[in-house]
């Protein structure tokens, strides 16, 4: 994305931390909700408390980060990774089991639209109720009432009970109240998931305006386009733990990788190849192992730095003596095929290793996936195919580099 650096610098005040999360963990107790006194008694008198404890779980473990004033801070992670729990703790809804959260400034949780909305009350009553819960006095609400109603385009519906509103009307109403909240810090969770495309467009316009105003926004979404468009920094949460804070581009790549990794539980080849999303082939030749080397050294997590030498070593089990062709395909997170080197016919005796070397790899920093396919010499029969099975992380400074490859060119004036 093409952010102008000066604009970012002015908006964000790095000397002022407005949200400070340190070492925060959250444990959810077992069998939440309805408990009876009998259960309490039995667990009090029984020595076997372990069985009950097992039902609880850690929703978040030892997460720490800081958000600066004026920052648009994204949080991404798969469903159940703990990001909403984290947001609720920042909002003060949940109390951390361990660690502490300090906030500076008034927080308005945008966690869910239409908090307190009651189906049995009229639209008008709901506006005032919801407004009060967002921190407005009744007088302030009266002054804003007409604006809210006209923004939501619901002038003729305000005396009708909310249960007779369509869901779209409810969201419109809730949204037009929520955007008026005067807060220093706004917590937004998945608002974009609801509503049609014109509503989403409205949301984006509001976010752009809020960002310009220099308000601090913490933003949870699965929409990587929104992340890349708005966020300054992004926290990636993976399975209750913070994976790190990244630029929006990096975060998008990592998020995509996490999804691919967990979506596929079959075809477990090796630790290096990870979980192959899909594998097929007749099986005369099967890939056993893939290892990635960077600058001649084994790279455990398949990490290589831009401009370094990359080597991919593969070993096979072959039931055939025919010559084979090995094809690689390097794809970026958007599935764009960036490079697809094929080998010449290789004569393979059993368990022999084949390697592919690329010097000074020009891939820009990010996550990539490598597909490996093994064919007969005529490229008719496919023996083994591992779709996007090897993840490759390219590191390096992405500063001033846009696009897919680094041409390692020089500017001269």
């Amino acid at each position, binding site marked *: 994305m093409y952010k102008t650096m000066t604009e970012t610098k002015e908006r964000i005040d790095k000397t002022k931390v407005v949200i400070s999360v340190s070492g925060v963990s959250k444990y*959810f*107790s077992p069998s*939440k*909700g*309805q*408990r*009876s*006194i*009998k259960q*309490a008694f039995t667990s009090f008198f029984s020595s076997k408390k372990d069985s009950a404890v097992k039902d609880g779980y850690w929703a978040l473990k030892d997460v720490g980060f800081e958000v600066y004033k004026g920052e648009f801070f994204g949080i991404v992670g798969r469903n159940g990774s703990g990001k909403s729990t984290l947001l*609720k703790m920042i*909002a*003060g*809804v*949940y*109390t951390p089991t361990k660690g502490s959260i300090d906030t500076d400034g008034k*927080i308005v*949780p945008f*966690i*869910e639209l239409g*908090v*307190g909305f*009651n189906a*049995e*009350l009229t639209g008008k*009553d709901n506006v*005032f*109720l919801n*407004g*009060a*819960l967002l*921190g*407005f*006095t*009744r007088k302030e609400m009266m002054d804003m009432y007409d604006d809210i109603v006209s923004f939501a385009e619901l002038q003729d519906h305000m005396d009708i009970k909310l249960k007779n509103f369509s869901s779209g009307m409810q969201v419109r109403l809730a949204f037009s109240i929520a955007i008026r909240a005067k807060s220093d810090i706004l917590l937004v969770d998945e608002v974009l998931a609801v509503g049609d495309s014109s509503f989403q467009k409205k949301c984006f316009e509001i976010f752009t305006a809020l960002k310009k105003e220099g308000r601090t926004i913490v933003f949870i979404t699965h929409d990587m386009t929104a992340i890349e468009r708005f966020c300054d920094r992004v926290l990636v949460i993976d399975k209750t733990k913070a994976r790190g804070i990244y630029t929006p581009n990096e975060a998008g790549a990592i998020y995509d990788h996490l999804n691919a990794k967990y979506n596929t539980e079959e075809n477990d080849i090796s630790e290096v190849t990870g979980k192959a999303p899909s594998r097929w082939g007749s099986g005369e030749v099967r890939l056993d192992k893939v290892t990635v080397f960077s600058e001649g050294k084994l790279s455990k997590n398949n990490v290589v730095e831009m401009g370094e030498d990359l080597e991919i070593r593969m070993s096979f089990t072959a039931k055939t003596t025919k010559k084979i062709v090995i094809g690689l395909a390097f794809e970026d997170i958007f599935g764009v095929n960036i490079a697809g080197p094929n080998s010449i016919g290789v004569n393979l005796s059993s368990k022999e290793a084949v390697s592919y070397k690329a010097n000074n790899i020009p891939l820009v920093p990010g996550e990539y996936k490598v597909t490996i396919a093994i064919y007969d010499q005529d490229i008719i029969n496919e023996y083994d195919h591992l779709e996007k099975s090897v993840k490759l992380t390219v590191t390096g400074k992405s500063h001033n580099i846009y696009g897919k490859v680094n041409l390692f060119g020089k500017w001269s004036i």
Partner: protein
Amino acid sequence: MQILSKTNKSILSAMVRSDFKLRYQNSILGYLWSLLRPLLLSVILYIVFVKFLRISGDIRHYASYLLLGIMCWTFFIEITMGGVSAVVGKGDLIRKISIPRYLTVVSTSASALINFGLNFVVLLGIMLVTGVEVQVKYLILVPFLLIQLYALSLAIAFILAAAYVKYRDVSFIWEVFTQMLFYLTPIIYPVSLVVQRYPMGKYIMLNPLAQIIQHLRYILVTPQSQTAWQVLGWTALVPILSVPVICIIAVKYFRSESKSFAENV
């Protein structure tokens, strides 16, 4: 508990407003019903216990005497019963935003306060018509007694509300317990009746509710009402001091429990 900020005040008033609208929008007599409740209850109890069972003793102005007792009782029941489900009933709010948790309990007490106030006006009317013996020199104590009653009811409501989040038996237990408490509190019968017949009978005045009701009756209706001081002597400090003690316990318990409301409710 901190004094209400401007924001909390508007949250509270919005919650009370919508609760009122929700409760009365579908009944024809609407709000009048909740106002009539203690009056109708008093009439029934008056007929049953005074006319049929004749246990009024020889209390003068028994109608006012009874109504005052019933009003205090209804107030206590409305607040505590409302308190049981105050937090759980507002679960969708508690799970989503961080409004101060105690507002949910306080908001449910608002309707009880209004009802009590309006019933008090009715009572004053009856008192004027039938004539009562007001103890003018103690009149200054009435506000303190009313505050005591409100504090006691609210404190118990806080305890019940927090406990109900974890233990759903609380509502049943409290329902049965209040049935019992109604007869253990000298509301329909005069204290003297119990004290004379049973040697242990005087200990019914250890109940803080009994202490408050009897003092109010003594000051506002007739000095025939036996107060805790008369029955128990210095031991009367027990029901009086139990109110602040219950309040402290309630605040501490509610505060510690409220941290986990959002996940348990």
